[in-house]
């Protein structure tokens, strides 16, 4: 399965750097985009309120590729809102013209560790009233968990 395999996660000084490699995917250029998307709320009422309180459900950051290795860094302040979206999925998307717009989901699928959510844990970062923690989901995808910081 084509995806972006996470090798290292570096949450430091209000930023998060992600290093890894593209699996079964040709980048088609040196630039990629990291897209973080928050799943929509279930009810219509919530959706309307959420748009106001939580802001857009998409954040975009630049990523660079060297061969099949990628690296991207983003500030966690980008997720600060009065009520941040609680969870973000993460994808790498090629930017080069003509490259297939296949999204490569970030995750860790190639090593031998069975319970990645328990074994690969990282410190949360705080900025502008938001606390952001990179986590692995039950499906071994990388996600960001956000909540208001005290």
């Amino acid at each position, binding site marked *: 399965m084509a995806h972006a395999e996470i090798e290292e996660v570096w949450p430091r000084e209000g930023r998060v750097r992600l290093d890894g490699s593209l699996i079964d995917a040709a980048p088609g250029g040196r630039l990629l985009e990291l897209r973080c998307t928050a799943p929509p709320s279930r009810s219509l009422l919530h959706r309307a309120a959420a748009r106001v309180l939580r802001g857009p459900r998409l954040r975009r950051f630049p990523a660079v590729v060297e061969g099949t290795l990628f690296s991207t860094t983003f500030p966690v302040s980008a997720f600060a809102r009065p009520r941040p979206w609680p969870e973000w999925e993460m994808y790498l998307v090629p930017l080069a013209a003509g490259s297939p717009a296949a999204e490569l989901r970030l995750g860790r699928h190639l090593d031998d560790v069975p319970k990645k959510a328990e*074994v690969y844990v990282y*410190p949360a970062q705080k900025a502008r009233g938001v606390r952001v923690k990179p986590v692995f989901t039950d499906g071994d995808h990388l996600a960001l968990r956000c909540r208001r910081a005290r």
Partner: protein
Amino acid sequence: MRITYALMNANGMGGTVRTINTQVAAMADAGHEVELISALRWRRNPGFPYHPAVRIRHLTEAGSGVLDDGPSPEIPEGEPFRHRFTPGVVDAVADAFSRLDTDVLITTRPALNLLAARHAPEPVIRIGQVHNSIVQLCGDLRPAVAAEYRRLDAVVTLTETDRLGYAGLLGPGVRTAALPNALHSLDEPRCDPASKVVAAAGTLARRKGFPMLIKAFAQVVARHPDWKLRIYGHGPGRERLQELIFRLHLYNHVHLMGQSERLSAEFAKASVFALSSRREAFGMVLAEAMSQGLAPVSFDCPFGPREIITHGRDGLLVPPEDTDALAEALCRVIGDGAERARLGAEAARSTRARFGPRSQLEAWESLLADLRAARLTTA
């Protein structure tokens, strides 16, 4: 011979249970009639399957309310598992011991050793096995052991150092012997000396010294950023270790793996084993890792490691609780693949020769024969 072993919980997963599992299998294979008394059944099924010929008798059930009371006053406060020895458990053990119809009773922890000394009938040969070292006899446990273990026929320790300690405490009236643990199997997979993983394993508790290992590994990562440390085990110290890993920015290099059902399969993925304990009664896990060919680096803590590792030949010993020395030794085996492979190969050879599953059988049988002969002479 009819041999009865007594454990606190035969379904546990700790080192004592594992080694007794190996011991009863060797005894059963040798044709002895083996029964296992479990004072308290804690899990539904055994953590490790027992030899089919071994009869297991659980005296009480953890879920039955037997643990609702406080510890029995009959058990010294220094017994680390005193909270499990409630009056209900103690009465059940005392009753079972007093009715024993067997040739030998081998008990495996202080409370059980004391109850054997007090309640097992005179014709039964009573052996107290000591899986915790003598330095762990705290408070009122030490005088109780000194006074009451004298009624046992023999006290068996895991190391020679510990045997000398007990011989001094108990005086010449009690026979003492040092019989190390045996490896459960010699069929475990060999490790890959090229793997860039250091393994460690143990309860996540202070005595295992994992904070020192993590700090040492911070120095290793500075020189060898492609190496990882995997710590297997669970316990109360997990959160604090994780915080230390965060503080040292080692979350990409040091991983708390949790408890593994198949530790040997995990060891096979590493090439180096690190032991950072403040103390060990024996260090079974060290011998197990070595038997799979991992190059060991260990603190020279009391008591086990120095009786398992010959420094420079089948592993490296460094001064206890010396984090810098531990880092230096780890870098030595990490930085030199040939040295690592040489130490690992010799570690596998020496441990398999000394600690195989039946390695202690002959020593045990000759001890039992001696004790029986001594009884006949007295009679």
